[in-house]
């Protein structure tokens, strides 16, 4: 605590300026260090594998860009990527809308808020294999929808053997299981908006809807970017849930890119190819992510 004013101590200014300049690096350091050692280094090794033929055990054989050439001529890779994109385009807005909707409901003055929040959050705590089992219990051959149809003497529908219904089932299961996570993010974001703004708007005679579009949404920008980017990355990486529910079927209808990488790379003992595919996927998602980030200026107001 200085007794003199700072302006009268030029050395103090530069010292403070320098302190402020190294401060961010120091704050980022622990995270950066762990991240570099445990993620960056292995990833670089993974990139090295992508230029080799490697089964994970026997010594690698350098093959240059062969894996990449393989990928570019692999129709199935690109069609699977397309399927994944379609899935992402549907799921991301759905999750955004539903989780925001529920979050808005749950920041109001309702009794037993915690209880309701827990209900929506609970599915995120359930492992994917059980989520798959649960929705199979609803949609499957031996499930309740079919049981009801049989009870009414209707013909059974094998939802999960039908490509369209299988895709719908997977989307429903995904939204059900992930909504709670994004709801919590939105709740935190909504609560960061000072109530004063709403008070002022109310005094000015603005309707609730107007307040939503002119106060809530703009001030929610940082959280919105967070939710959209995270849910998009998740959608691109979707695999365990689909696998547990439909096995990726019928006939590959719900097989998305990570499952494809897994089956083509790992099941065929081709870690090098799997790494190359991951690099390609990485580049594609990064482009999307960076675009999103730049377009929204990082969510800053």
């Amino acid at each position, binding site marked *: 605590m200085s007794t003199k004013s700072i302006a009268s101590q030029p050395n103090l200014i530069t010292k403070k300026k320098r302190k402020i300049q190294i401060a961010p690096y120091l704050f980022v350091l622990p995270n950066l260090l762990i991240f570099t050692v445990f993620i960056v280094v292995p990833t670089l090794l993974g990139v090295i594998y992508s230029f080799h033929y490697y089964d994970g055990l026997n010594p690698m054989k350098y093959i240059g860009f062969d894996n990449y050439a393989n990928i570019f001529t692999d129709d199935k890779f690109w069609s699977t990527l397309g399927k994944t994109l379609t899935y992402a385009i549907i799921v991301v807005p759905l999750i955004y809308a539903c989780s925001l909707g529920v979050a808005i409901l749950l920041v109001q003055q309702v009794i037993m808020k915690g209880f309701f929040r827990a209900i929506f959050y609970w599915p995120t705590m359930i492992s994917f294999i059980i989520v798959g089992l649960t929705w199979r219990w609803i949609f*499957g051959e031996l499930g309740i929808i079919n049981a009801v149809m049989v009870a009414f003497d209707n013909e059974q529908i094998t939802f999960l053997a039908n490509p369209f219904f299988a895709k719908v089932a997977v989307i429903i299961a995904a939204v059900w299981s992930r909504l709670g996570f994004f709801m919590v993010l939105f709740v935190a974001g909504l609560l960061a908006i000072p109530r004063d703004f709403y008070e002022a708007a109310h005094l000015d005679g603005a309707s609730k809807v107007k307040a939503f579009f002119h106060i809530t949404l703009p001030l929610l920008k940082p959280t919105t970017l967070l939710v959209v980017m995270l849910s998009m990355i998740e959608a691109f990486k979707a695999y365990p849930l689909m696998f547990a529910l439909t096995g990726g079927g019928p006939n590959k209808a719900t097989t998305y890119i990570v499952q494809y990488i897994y089956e083509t790379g790992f099941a065929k003992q081709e870690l090098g190819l799997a790494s190359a595919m991951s690099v390609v996927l990485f580049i594609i998602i990064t482009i999307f992510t960076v675009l999103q980030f730049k377009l929204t200026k990082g969510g800053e107001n």
Partner: protein
Amino acid sequence: MKLNSKGLLLLVCTLVLSLVVSGCGSNNKTQENGTSTKKNVKLDFVWFSDGDEGKVMENIIADYEKENTHVDIQLIEVAYNDLSTKLKTMVSGGKPPALSRISTSEIGSFSNFAVDLGEQLGGVEPFTSQFIDSIKPYYVIDNKVVASPMDVTANGIIYNKTLFDQAGVAVPTSSDDIWTWDEFNASLKEVMEKSDAKYGLVWDYTPHRWSTLLYQFGGSMMNPEGTEGTINNEAGIEAVNYFKKMHDEGIIPRSVWLGGENPNNLFRTGTVAAHLSGNWMVSSYKDITDFEWGVTYMPIAKNRSSVPGGKFVMAFQDSGVEEESANFIAYLSSKEVNSKYNQESLFMSPRKDSADLDYEFGKEMFALFADELNNTIPAAAEDWSKQTIIPKFSSDLKDGLVEVLAEGATAEDMLNDINDRINEAIANAK
């Protein structure tokens, strides 16, 4: 809840301390009898279970440790689906386990890292002569014994007796009386009509199980020498089309191969007349109480055939305890211990002299499976033992079959495509 810096520091210290304590404490195995016996050999045994065989192995280990007090064997249990991951990271990372239970799908990849049991245990011929010949291609690679057989599996048919009885349909009672595939289908249709059965047959969703049909039609995936693919010959095409026919006629539900439905669960509802699976289901279905079930002969197309498989134990090089591991494997492979293991786990023994075990449950069933094994064409083991080729196309075969079932491709086109992949893999393997 504001944590000031002191509180936070205290909490962190407490947790780190408990961590260190728990980390240190677990390195020493607790001695139940209180005596401090010096264990100077520790064998890590990676294991996976489908039923209760883990418990049976633990008892066997306990017996071994009593006789060999300087040895400490620890089972490291993982799920079967994670076995490959676990072993690959450990072996690649330079920390191989002493031993691992291993199935036919993994032996090939790890064969270069396995201890040659032939060397350690008295020579290739003497060692392998203890076991049935049909599984030899699986565990003897380049005249090296890379693993020791623990149990042998055979594909076969489990059927719902209650449904068959309800419909008044008989099953073959002896191997002279075996039905053809057409006769089998006709029987299934009858059961579906005259009883509560909704479906005739559920078939496991794996290329290994489908290949049973291929061999029964007289086909194969490769020629015996493994120099070229043969899957797209007439027999292969017939087998694929017959498989499709059974789906189209509603005998096999579409939900398994096309909808990811679990055939075990379907069979357990009691609404399916038969399940083409294997002997490992006997111990699993043991607890079914709401209907009677049994095992019966698989049909004949051109010839009878099953598909052999099995589980083995492999010892790894560079574990530091190769000799002790080999000794333990010798113990496990002995007639007494191997029989005990298979009898109590309800598995089939791979030993020539242990075909007739005194099972507590299902003795006749295992006799039938053994009969299926004895009537298996050589192509089955020859094909599936080629573990450098199989992984390169087996998932494509599975996908291809699904595509044909979904009417996305013809059998000929699909099999030609697969055959190309087989030949490609063979060329690359050289």
